[in-house]
């Protein structure tokens, strides 16, 4: 195959990365390992732990809102809940979820490399992640309690409140650096470590989206870093920067905040889109429709995503020119996403579709992301945004995008790749049951928010007018259904890891990308010899034969 084969020195079976013994043994072999796969697993465990915490806070918030007035907690506690929920879910779950777990684990494999460009830096970014996470949690036990500002830390409230805002700010700052280092690593990896035969247009689409995401991480994150640092400085040293009492401009803070935080939305969704592009052709058993359009739309999203931040601020009283430009640009950013959705749908046409659990999540992704995207377009329309801004319409919208989009893509990736990562198969039937419960619960939970938002239910409200009670009630019931589904899904995984059927087959689903050509679970060095890529990654030459093999 490849002429410049690398000698491995052993002829027998290579141990998988799970069994590999390096310099350190046991737990140290994990937390000191610079192997991208082990770091991926470290992220998997830590990100999921934070996800569960986020879910718990979300659950408590919904429970509080089941009826008007005080139900289970006081207003003060509720305000802390939604801040923690936001900070945890955004900075500790959804931003690192797909890039840090699956990007770390599979990006090098997908491009035929042995590791990322800077393995030690990679480990450092995990440590920064853990430090940031612990800092955010530490504020819970400190006197004064966690921040009650919402995850946006708007000035001047964030310099007035007595709660431990600094912990949350510093946590976000450190997590930002973790994210920057991951991005920097991935950009360099994609440029330098692709297997020699893999040209840019032979890269899998998930690599394209990881690459686009990484650029946004590198370029946008420093802005939030400095902004949050300035708030810390303002709080501690009383330097006048944003605080209007010292002559500052609170709107400027919002601009700087959203210069990062809007691109961050694309840091969250782009990897999810990459996962969708990766999984659809595998389960439709045919090539993806419009490879180049999907690849370029990732870059276009990353680019346009940096131009539209102020659509979070249509009500602050910007200049007319500002409103006009930002609304127009916001409309433009919808187009690449639409292109992706159409191409994904077209990929199903004349395929041979297998509704395995990963595919179910992906199809649900397209549906939920479409709702999220279309409601997003509505908010780009200024006249509508004026009405729905800061209402539960927004909350519904971004949960459709972030949870229904990225979250579902994340679940799909779990079902798609976990067997590859651990060599154990989960129970397919249970996975499907869990899927339907989650999908149903999700819509029950978030759809009512869209309606009551339009009717004028503001967000971050602990209490509400009686007319909104039915919607809140249904929504809370939805949260129970959703959580039930999550519990089934994750117990399924846990059971599979302990007693699931062992898989050693290389190609579990009939995929054509490189990770399906190596051992399950992968060996320490991923590839025995340097892989040669002949065509772009979604060519299904002999569909039926591949199917036969799989069934055997």
């Amino acid at each position, binding site marked *: 195959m490849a002429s410049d084969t690398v*000698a*491995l020195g052993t002829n027998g079976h290579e141990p998988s990365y799970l069994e590999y013994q390096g310099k350190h043994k046991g737990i140290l072999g994990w937390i000191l390992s*610079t192997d991208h796969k082990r770091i991926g697993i470290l992220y998997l465990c830590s990100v999921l732990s934070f996800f569960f915490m986020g879910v718990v806070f979300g659950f408590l918030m919904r429970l509080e809102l089941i009826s008007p007035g005080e139900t289970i907690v006081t207003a003060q506690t509720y305000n802390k809940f939604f801040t923690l929920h936001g900070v945890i879910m955004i900075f500790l779950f959804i931003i690192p979820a797909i890039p840090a777990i699956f990007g770390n684990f599979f990006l090098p494999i997908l491009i035929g490399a042995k590791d990322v*460009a800077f393995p030690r830096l990679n480990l450092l970014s995990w440590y920064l992640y853990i430090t940031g996470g612990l800092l955010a949690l530490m504020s819970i036990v400190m006197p004064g309690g966690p921040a009650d500002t919402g995850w946006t830390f708007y000035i001047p409230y964030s310099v007035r409140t007595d709660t431990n805002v600094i912990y949350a700010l510093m946590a976000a700052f450190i997590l930002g650096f973790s994210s920057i280092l991951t991005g920097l690593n991935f*950009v360099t990896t994609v440029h330098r470590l692709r297997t020699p035969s893999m040209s840019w247009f032979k890269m899998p689409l998930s690599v394209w989206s990881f690459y686009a995401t990484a650029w946004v991480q590198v370029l946008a994150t420093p802005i939030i870093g400095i902004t949050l640092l300035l708030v810390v400085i303002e709080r501690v040293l009383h330097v006048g*920067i944003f605080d209007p009492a010292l002559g500052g401009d609170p709107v400027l803070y919002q601009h700087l905040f959203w210069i990062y935080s809007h691109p961050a939305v694309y840091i969250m969704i782009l990897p999810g889109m990459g996962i969708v592009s990766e999984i659809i052709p595998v389960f439709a058993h045919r090539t993806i429709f419009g490879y180049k359009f999907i690849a370029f739309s990732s870059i276009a999203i990353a680019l346009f995503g940096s131009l539209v931040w102020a659509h979070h601020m249509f009500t602050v009283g910007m200049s007319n020119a500002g409103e006009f430009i930002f609304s127009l640009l916001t409309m433009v950013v919808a187009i690449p996403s639409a292109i992706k959705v159409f191409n994904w749908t077209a990929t199903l046409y004349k395929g041979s579709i297998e509704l395995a659990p990963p595919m179910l999540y992906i199809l649900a992704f397209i549906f939920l992301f479409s709702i999220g995207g279309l409601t997003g377009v509505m908010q780009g329309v200024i006249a509508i945004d004026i009405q729905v801004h800061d209402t539960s319409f927004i909350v519904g919208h971004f949960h459709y995008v972030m949870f229904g989009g990225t979250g579902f893509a994340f679940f799909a990736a779990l079902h798609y790749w976990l067997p590859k990562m651990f060599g154990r198969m989960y129970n397919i039937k249970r996975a499907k049951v869990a899927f339907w419960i989650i999908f149903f619960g999700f819509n029950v939970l978030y759809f009512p928010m869209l309606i009551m938002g339009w009717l004028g239910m503001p967000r971050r409200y602990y209490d509400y007018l009686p007319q909104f009670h039915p919607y809140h009630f249904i929504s809370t019931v939805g949260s129970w259904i959703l959580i039930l589904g999550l519990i089934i899904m994750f117990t399924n995984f846990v059971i599979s890891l302990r007693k699931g059927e062992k898989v050693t087959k290389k190609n579990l689903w009939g995929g054509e990308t490189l990770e399906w050509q190596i051992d399950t679970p992968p060996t320490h060095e991923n590839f025995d010899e340097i892989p040669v890529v002949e065509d772009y990654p979604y060519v299904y030459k002999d569909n039926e034969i591949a199917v036969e093999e799989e069934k055997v």
Partner: protein
Amino acid sequence: MTTQAQVHSAEHVHRDDLGARLGMWLFLFTELILFGGMFLVYSVYRFSHPQEFHIAAKELNTIVGTFNTMILLTSSLTMVLSIAAIQRDNKKLSIFFQFLTILLAVFFMVNKFFEWSVKFHHGIYPGSETLLNEKSGDILFFGLYYVMTGLHGLHVLVGIVIIAVMMRFTSKGIVTHDNYIKLENTGLYWHLVDIIWIFLFPLFYLIT
């Protein structure tokens, strides 16, 4: 990269200097945008309080600022010369130039220290009564002055430490004429610190 040597078996020790530089440049972009964020704040406030910024800038000592600019530019020269020296396999000369760079950086910091102490002496420091009684444009100007030059000073301090480490690396033979990427990346960082000062200097000292 030497880091890869650790994870991979000895057969294919992989060094990718170009990759390392690529990574360094990406890191520099984050630094650039970090300061860029503060320049954004600066430019908006300068736009909304032109007069007050104009007058407040007169408080700053142009001579000290110019002197410091010269020092920093010279340190950039010695930095790049130390790389040129190691390329020519002249270890001693390289170490000498690195030492000069550190010396100049320390000079810069000493100057900065005196400049700040004079301001403090006049009661102009964050949260001081003198300052809080001024117009909001003045508060913002000095707030930004302290934060931006302060953060820049922090970068200079970090630079001093890194160059000191490089001096040790060079003398121990870790940085050599055919493997000097660490020193080269240090140089890139140092020049970026210089570039940021190139913009800080006119915007704070020269807009009177």
